[in-house]
């Protein structure tokens, strides 16, 4: 039965890398407006899954259905325009550009103006440029980054860089936001800010899929969790259910034993 408020369906996704099975028959349904956690020991395939969802990798089998349409095979920028935005495990901001420019790139990519209009600075081009500016200002102000707007993104403190990356992803007006270990390397204070940002974005209606290792973060933010181990989905449930789930505990402990 297809739930009416399923916004994204990951169906039978498989991915191999030169014989190594990274993902095997993964099936996950993401509900509209939820905050979903995806957890699992190292190497369980979480980032690979994100890469497939954002169009960076092609799966060997299966499909990803966004609003009923299969996005497998589409270019990452097309997938972004369809509504999926993401951040990366190793921060990938545009470090040699200013914070403002980082946001403006994302805002502007939604509807680029033609080359000649830009060069001739037609009314339409100027109007669009102003709109980009205004929207960027709104986004940066709401995240308290407006004062830093002309600083180079690479010069920001680590925690703020992560927030910037999330802001940039948000600027593309997504329906789904994939966050890949946004809390990695953050201190307590920064994590508090992160929680506030994620919660705010979710309240605005954005569905969030969160890969995280920090269990506190996961427990606090997510409503449902999917657990991967060695490329397979081994459990799904509420944070409470998952923390008591025998299979999940074994998966994590098992990895510790062999490590």
């Amino acid at each position: 039965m297809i739930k009416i408020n399923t916004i994204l369906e990951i169906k039978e996704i498989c991915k191999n890398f030169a014989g190594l099975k990274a993902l095997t028959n993964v099936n996950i349904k993401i509900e509209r407006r939820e905050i979903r956690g995806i957890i699992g020991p190292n190497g369980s395939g979480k980032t690979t899954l994100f890469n497939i969802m954002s169009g960076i990798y092609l799966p060997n089998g299966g499909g990803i259905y966004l609003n009923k349409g299969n996005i497998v095979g589409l270019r990452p920028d097309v997938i972004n325009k369809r509504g999926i935005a993401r951040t990366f495990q190793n921060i990938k901001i545009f470090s040699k550009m200013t914070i403002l420019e980082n946001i403006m790139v994302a805002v502007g990519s939604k509807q680029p103006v033609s080359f000649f209009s830009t060069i001739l600075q037609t009314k339409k081009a100027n109007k669009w440029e102003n709109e980009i500016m205004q929207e960027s200002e709104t986004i940066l102000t709401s995240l308290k980054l407006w004062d830093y707007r002309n600083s180079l993104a690479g010069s920001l403190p680590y925690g703020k860089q992560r927030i910037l990356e999330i802001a940039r992803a948000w600027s593309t007006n997504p329906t789904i936001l994939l966050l890949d270990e946004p809390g990695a390397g953050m201190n307590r204070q920064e994590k508090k800010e992160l929680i506030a940002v994620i919660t705010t974005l979710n309240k605005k209606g954005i569905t969030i899929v969160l890969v995280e290792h920090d269990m506190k973060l996961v427990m606090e933010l997510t409503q449902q969790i999917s657990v991967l181990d060695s490329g397979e989905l081994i459990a799904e449930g509420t944070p409470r259910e998952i923390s008591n789930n025998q299979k999940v505990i074994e998966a994590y402990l098992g990895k510790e034993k062999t490590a």
Partner: protein
Amino acid sequence: MNTNRTMLSIKVIFILFLIALPLIVRDQYWIHIIDIIGIYSILSLGLNILVGFTGQLSLGHAAFFGISAYTSAILAIRLHFPFLICILAAVVVSAFFGLILSYPCLRLKGIYLAITTIGFGQIMYTVFVEWRGLTHGPMGLTGIPSPKIGNIVFDNSTYYYYIILLCFLLALLVALRINNSHIGRSMKSIRDDEMAAETCGVDIARYKMIGFVISAAFAGMSGSLYAHYLNFISPDSFTFDFSTQMLIMILIGGVGSIPGSVIGAIVVTFIPEILRDFKMYQMVIYGAILVLILIFLPDGLSQIFRNIPSKLGLNKLLKNTNTLAGKDNS
């Protein structure tokens, strides 16, 4: 806004200065040098858009310089087209080849990209040398007519200066507009992190193509100017060594910097001239300067100039934080 008006006045003064330049520098020899600098600046600006903004290495750009020079020259010599048509055709043809080159380059990175551009340069060079019917081969094309507008023939350095100036200002305008627009920002995002840019909705292929086409078009303009200025071209000017020289120009001046493009052109043209008396050591000093700049001034010479305004307290004047128009991003 006051800042806007000041910026405008500075720009106007700058342009007036450039217009008056030949009257200030009367020596024909130095005006000739300035002409060459002008031609190279346009070339350099174009290359910076591809390499500096979009982050795509091109080690075969001499090919575009040559394609446009030959196109312009042949149209003028064989078909007696007026200069204006020749230069326009040169720009279009060069841009077209830029488009062609962009296709294989879209998926390539790093050394693969570099080698492909080198290959393109080499293939074109071979065409220049071997297609004797069209290009006269190694002997080159002589008798390329100087531009003629009405009764005025632009066959001396001073007159020609104004043609070059016009083209330079046009190129500068386009470069500045690209720099401060969504196109420029998207290009730079590709340079900084291609994968991230793509997931932010940036159409990588489109902007890489634009980069190649525009830089080829700029080279197209310079090539034509070059041909009709020197009235002679030969394949010797369009070798791999020259492609390297172009890269050196933007490196010395500052990769991705618009003023840097001009600075680089100035340095690359001046040094051989200043060191004329030291013919033997000329190139060694040149190589040494390049190495030193790379090690100690990685952002090029424009780095120095960027620091001067702040030292003179002019920062507030030049910082256009809220406005878009007039934002000359150095």
